[in-house]
C-alpha cells in the first residue's frame, strides 16, 4: 500500500483537521488543515504558543486520538487504520512522562522492556548504556516518585529507549526542568540523533531548544506558520534585529517596555544590560532616536516575526468582525494610595543568616540578602535549591529555624499577620477556586483581605480593568486559558495593594507570548514602586531583574545585578556569556568544590536532586532514605 516515497518519511500528514469542544460548548480548532513531512533520521521540533496544536499533533501520530479529516501516515502506516502497528514501532513520552512513581527506577525500565518484548540479551547490552547516558546508575533502586523533576524526565526518556524505536515522540520533555537538567536531557537527545540516526519529534515552548533541531515546525492556533530549518525562520528577522543601549540612568527593561509599546516594533527583550529588538520592515528610522547596533537574528526573533504577522492577520479579521482588543498597549497601571514609584534605598526585605532545617537536612543554609523598595528581585536556582522554602519563610507560611527575617519593616517571627497584610503571594500552582467565576474569586479574595464597601468595589474594578479580565468576569476561572489564569492570580494577590509581591515560578509552562505580557505587567508594577520577588527557571528572565541571587543546595552562590553575575562566571575579555551559561557555570563550580571538600569522590552524600521532593513528602522528617 505504501509507496517508496512514503516509507522514507517518518511522518506524513495531509490537511489534518481536528476540533475539540470545550465544556462551555465552544468549539476549538486544535489543528486546522496542517500538512507536513518529517524525514527519517532527523530531529524535528514543534514550536508554538499554548493552544497551537502541538500536543494534538503528537497524539494523533501515536494513534491515541483520531483526526476529523485529512490523512496521517506514521512510518508508512495509516495511523487511523492500524494504530496498534504504529504503537508497536514508536516510543512516546507524554507530558506527564508516564512513570510509575511507586516503582523503582529499575522496575520502571523492566516494565517497559517487558511490554516492548526486549530480550534479556538485549537488556544486558542496553541498560548499561542507558544508565551511563542518564547518570541514573546509582539510583536504580530508588522509587521514581522520589526522584527530582529532572531525573524523572531522564528516566521517562530512558523508558522510551529500552529498545530502538523507529520514531521517538516527546511532548514537552523539558517543561518545568531547571537549566542544568535541561542541558543534560538535550545532550542525551542530540547524542541519540547523531549516533543512532534516531528520528525524533518533540514539542517545546523553549525557543532556544528549537534552534538545536535540524527541522522546525511552527504552529500557531492550529495552523502551520513555517516548516524548515531553524535558520530559515531566523532569517525572517534578518536586517531587522538590533541591540539598543538604554540611555544613561535608564534601565534596560524600561527601554524594553517602551519599545514593546511602539507599534513599529515586533518584539523586544532585555539582554545583557541592553535591549534586543526586532522592528518592522521600515525600522531604520528607529536608529535616529537612539544608539542601536545590528544583531545576528536568532530563532526567537524570526518566531516573533511569524507570530506578529499571523496576529496582524487575525487582528484585521477580528476588527472586521468588530471584536478587536488591543494588546496591553501602554500599561500605566494606575495605582492609587501607598505606592510610590522608583527604586529606593530603603530595604523592604531583610534576610540575615536565615536557616531552615528539616530534621538533619539543611534546606536553607545561612542565607542573607536584602531587597530594596521598588526592586525586581530574582531568586534563581536548580530544583531543590531551597528557593521555595525561602519563599515560604518570607511569606510567613513557614517558621525559620534561625536567623532574622524582616519584611516591610516587620519581624516575621513576631508579627506575621501584620506582615501578611503588606505582601501579596502568587503560588506556583494555580491556587484559585476553579468553580468560581473570575469576579467571584476576586470578590472572595477582597473579603479575605478585609476590603469592604467602596474600596472593595474600586479595587475589584481596578483588577478587572488592569488585567483585562472584564469580558471574562463571568467565566469559571478553571476554564480560563493558561495566561489568563495567571493574570487572575496576580490580580487577586494585588487587591489589597501590597508593598511587596512574591511570585513563585510564575512563568513555568507559560508560552513566550504570555511570558512577555507577564513581564510587561511586572515592570509596570515595579515602576509604581511595588517590590517584586520572583523565582524562575528561565534564565533569560533574570535580565528583567534589578538584582538576582543564585542558590543551590540551600546556599547563596552569587548575588548582584544580572551584569555582575554574568561577569562573575566568565573572566573579562571572554565572549559575552548568556545568563544561562553563567548560571550553569556558577552552580557546577560550587558543586565541584562542595564534593571536593566535604565528601570523597563518588560519595554523593548530599544528593542535590531529591531533597525538594523528600522534604515535601515527609515534612520535618530526616531526608536521605535512599535505595529501597
Amino acid at each position, binding site marked *: 500500500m505504501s509507496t517508496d516515497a512514503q516509507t522514507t518519511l517518518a511522518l506524513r500528514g495531509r490537511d489534518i483537521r481536528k476540533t475539540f469542544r470545550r465544556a462551555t460548548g465552544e468549539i476549538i480548532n486544535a489543528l486546522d488543515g496542517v500538512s507536513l513531512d518529517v524525514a527519517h533520521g532527523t530531529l524535528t521540533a514543534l514550536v508554538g504558543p499554548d493552544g497551537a496544536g502541538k500536543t494534538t499533533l503528537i497524539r494523533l501520530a501515536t494513534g*491515541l486520538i483520531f483526526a476529523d479529516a485529512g490523512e496521517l501516515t506514521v512510518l508508512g502506516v495509516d495511523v487511523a487504520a492500524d*494504530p496498534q502497528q504504529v504503537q508497536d514501532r*514508536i516510543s512516546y513520552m*507524554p507530558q506527564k512522562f508516564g512513570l510509575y512513581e511507586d*516503582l523503582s527506577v529499575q*522496575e520502571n525500565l523492566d516494565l517497559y522492556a*517487558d*511490554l516492548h518484548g526486549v530480550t534479556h540479551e538485549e537488556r544486558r547490552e542496553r541498560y548499561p548504556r542507558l544508565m551511563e547516558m542518564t547518570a541514573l546508575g546509582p539510583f536504580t533502586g530508588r522509587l521514581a516518585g522520589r526522584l527530582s523533576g529532572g531525573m524523572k524526565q531522564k528516566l521517562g526518556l530512558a523508558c522510551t529507549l529500552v529498545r530502538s524505536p523507529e520514531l521517538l515522540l516527546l511532548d514537552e520533555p523539558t517543561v518545568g526542568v531547571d537549566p542544568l537538567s535541561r542541558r543534560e536531557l538535550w545532550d542525551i537527545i542530540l547524542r541519540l540523533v547523531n549516533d543512532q540516526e534516531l528520528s525524533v519529534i518533540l514539542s517545546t515552548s523553549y525557543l532556544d531548544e528549537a534552534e538545536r533541531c535540524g527541522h522546525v515546525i511552527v504552529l500557531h492556533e492550529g495552523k502551520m506558520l513555517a516548516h524548515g530549518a531553524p535558520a530559515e525562520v531566523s532569517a525572517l528577522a534578518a536586517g531587522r534585529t538590533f541591540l539598543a543601549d538604554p540611555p544613561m540612568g535608564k534601565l534596560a527593561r524600561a527601554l524594553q517596555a517602551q519599545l514593546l509599546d511602539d507599534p513599529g516594533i515586533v518584539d523586544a527583550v532585555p539582554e545583557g544590560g541592553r535591549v534586543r529588538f526586532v522592528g518592522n520592515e521600515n525600522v531604520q528610522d528607529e536608529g535616529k532616536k537612539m544608539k542601536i547596533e545590528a544583531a545576528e537574528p536568532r530563532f526567537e526573533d524570526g518566531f516573533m516575526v511569524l507570530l506578529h504577522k499571523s496576529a496582524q492577520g487575525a487582528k484585521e479579521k477580528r476588527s472586521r468582525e468588530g471584536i478587536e482588543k488591543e494588546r496591553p498597549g501602554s500599561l500605566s497601571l494606575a495605582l492609587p494610595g501607598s505606592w510610590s514609584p522608583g527604586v529606593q534605598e530603603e530595604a523592604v526585605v531583610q534576610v540575615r543568616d536565615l536557616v531552615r532545617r528539616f530534621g538533619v537536612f539543611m534546606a536553607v543554609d545561612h542565607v542573607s540578602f536584602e531587597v530594596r523598595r521598588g526592586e525586581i528581585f530574582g531568586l534563581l536556582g536548580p530544583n531543590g535549591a531551597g528557593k521555595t522554602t525561602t519563599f515560604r519563610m518570607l511569606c510567613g507560611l513557614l517558621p525559620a529555624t534561625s536567623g532574622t527575617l524582616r519584611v516591610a519593616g516587620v519581624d516575621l517571627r513576631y508579627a506575621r499577620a501584620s506582615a501578611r497584610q503588606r505582601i501579596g503571594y502568587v503560588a506556583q500552582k494555580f491556587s484559585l477556586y476553579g468553580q468560581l467565576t473570575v469576579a467571584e474569586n476576586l470578590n472572595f479574595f477582597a473579603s479575605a483581605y478585609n476590603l469592604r464597601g467602596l474600596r472593595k468595589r474600586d479595587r475589584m474594578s481596578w483588577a478587572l480593568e488592569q488585567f483585562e479580565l472584564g469580558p471574562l468576569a463571568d467565566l469559571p476561572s478553571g476554564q480560563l486559558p493558561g495566561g489568563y489564569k495567571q493574570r487572575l492570580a496576580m490580580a487577586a494577590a494585588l487587591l489589597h495593594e501590597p508593598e511587596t509581591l512574591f511570585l513563585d515560578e510564575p512563568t513555568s509552562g507559560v508560552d513566550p507570548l504570555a511570558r512577555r505580557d507577564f513581564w510587561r505587567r511586572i515592570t509596570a508594577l515595579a515602576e509604581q514602586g511595588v517590590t517584586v520577588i520572583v523565582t524562575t527557571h528561565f534564565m533569560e528572565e533574570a535580565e528583567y531583574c534589578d538584582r538576582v541571587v543564585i542558590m543551590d543546595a540551600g546556599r547563596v552562590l552569587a548575588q548582584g545585578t544580572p551584569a555582575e553575575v554574568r561577569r562573575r562566571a566568565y573572566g573579562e575579555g571572554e565572549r559575552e556569556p548568556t545568563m544561562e551559561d553563567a548560571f550553569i557555570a556558577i552552580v557546577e563550580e560550587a558543586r565541584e568544590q562542595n564534593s571536593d571538600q566535604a565528601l570523597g569522590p563518588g560519595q554523593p552524600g548530599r544528593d542535590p536532586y531529591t531533597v525538594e521532593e523528600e522534604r515535601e513528602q515527609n515534612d520535618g522528617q530526616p531526608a536521605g532514605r535512599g535505595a529501597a
Partner: protein
Amino acid sequence: MAGAASKGHPFFAKGRRLWALVRKESRQVVRDPSSIAIGIVLPVVLILLFGYGLSLDVKNVPVAVVLEDPAPEATELAASFQLSPYFDAALLTSMVRAQQQMLARKVDAILRIRPDFTRHLALGDAEVQLLVHGTDANHARIIQVYAQGAIGQWAARRAAEGKEALRGPVTVQNRVWFNEANESRYFLVPGVIVLIMTLIGAFLTSLVVAREWERGTMEAMFVTPVRPDEILLGKTIPYFVLGMIGLALCLLAAKFLFHVPFRGSALVLIGSSMLYLLVALAMGLLISSALKSQFVASQVALLVTFLPAVMLSGFLFDLRSMPAAVRVITYIVPARYYVTLLQTVFLAGDIWAVIVPNAAVLTGMASLFFVLTRRATQKKLA
C-alpha cells in the same frame, strides 16, 4: 517468565506482557498503604467489629428487680432474672430508687414484684410489672420478650418440681430457625464477607484505572505493543488474588474466632465468592475506566456497589419487609444474590435449588460487566 527463546510467537509475547503488567500492579498494591489498608486491615477490623462489637443481640441488659415480696416464690423469680445471661439484674427493695435509676438510664427496665405476689400466685392471677425504657423501640421489644422468657423458665421449673402449673404469665417459647442461639454474629460474619468482597472488588479497583489516567501513565502505556485486554487482565488478576486473601481471612475468623456453623461445602462457598468477586471487579473497573477521575470514581463506586451491598442485599435488612418498589430494585443488586448464597451455605447447607439460580445470575452479571469494561478500555484518549 517466558524465556528469550519464545520471542516472536505472539502468544508468548502476550503472556510476557501480561505477566509484566500483573507484576507491576502487584508491586503497586504491596507498596500502596491504602490498598493494604482496604485489602487486609479493613477485613480484619470489620470482622472484629461485627463479630465482637456490633452485635445486634441484646445481652446483659441492666435491669432493676424490685422485690417487695419476701416469699421464696418471689425470690426465686427474681433469681431467674439474675441468672439469665440476657439480664444484668440488680435487686432493689424500693421502687423509688429503681425509678431514679431508670431516669438516669442506669437501667433499661424495672421488674416489680409486688408484696401481694405470692397471694395472687396462689389465686392463679399473679402479676409482675415490667417497665421498659422505650426510647429504642426495637430494644424494648426484645427486652419484653426476654423478660417473658425468663418468667416462663421460672414457671417451667416450678412445674417440673411438681408444684401447680401456672395459669398466670404465659410461657413463651422462642425458637429461631438456622440461628437457634439467635446469635446475630452467625449472620453478620457472612455479611462482612460481602462487604469486604465489595470493597476490594469494586472500591479499590475503581481507583486503579482512574489513577493511571490522572498520572498520565495510561497514555504512555497505550503507546506500546500492549493490548487492551492485557491491560484489563493485568488489573483484574492482582485484585482477584487480594480479594481471595480477604475471603480467606474472613473464613478463618468465622470458623475459629466466632465458631459460625458451616453447613454447606467449601467448594460452593469459594465458587460463589469467586463469581461475586468477578462481578465486583468488573463493576469497579468499568466505573474507573469510564470516569477517569479517582475522586469521582470512588464516590460512584461507594454509591452503586457498597451502599446497596449494605442496605439492599438482605444482609442487615430483611428484603421481605421492604416495600415492593424497593424490593424490585434489589434484584439488580449483585450483592443480594451473594448474600443469599452465603447465608444458605453457612447456615442451611448445600441447597441446590437456591445455589444454582443465584450463581447463574452472578455469572450473567460478571459476563455482562466484563464485556462493558472491555468496551470501555479502548486505546484512545477521550
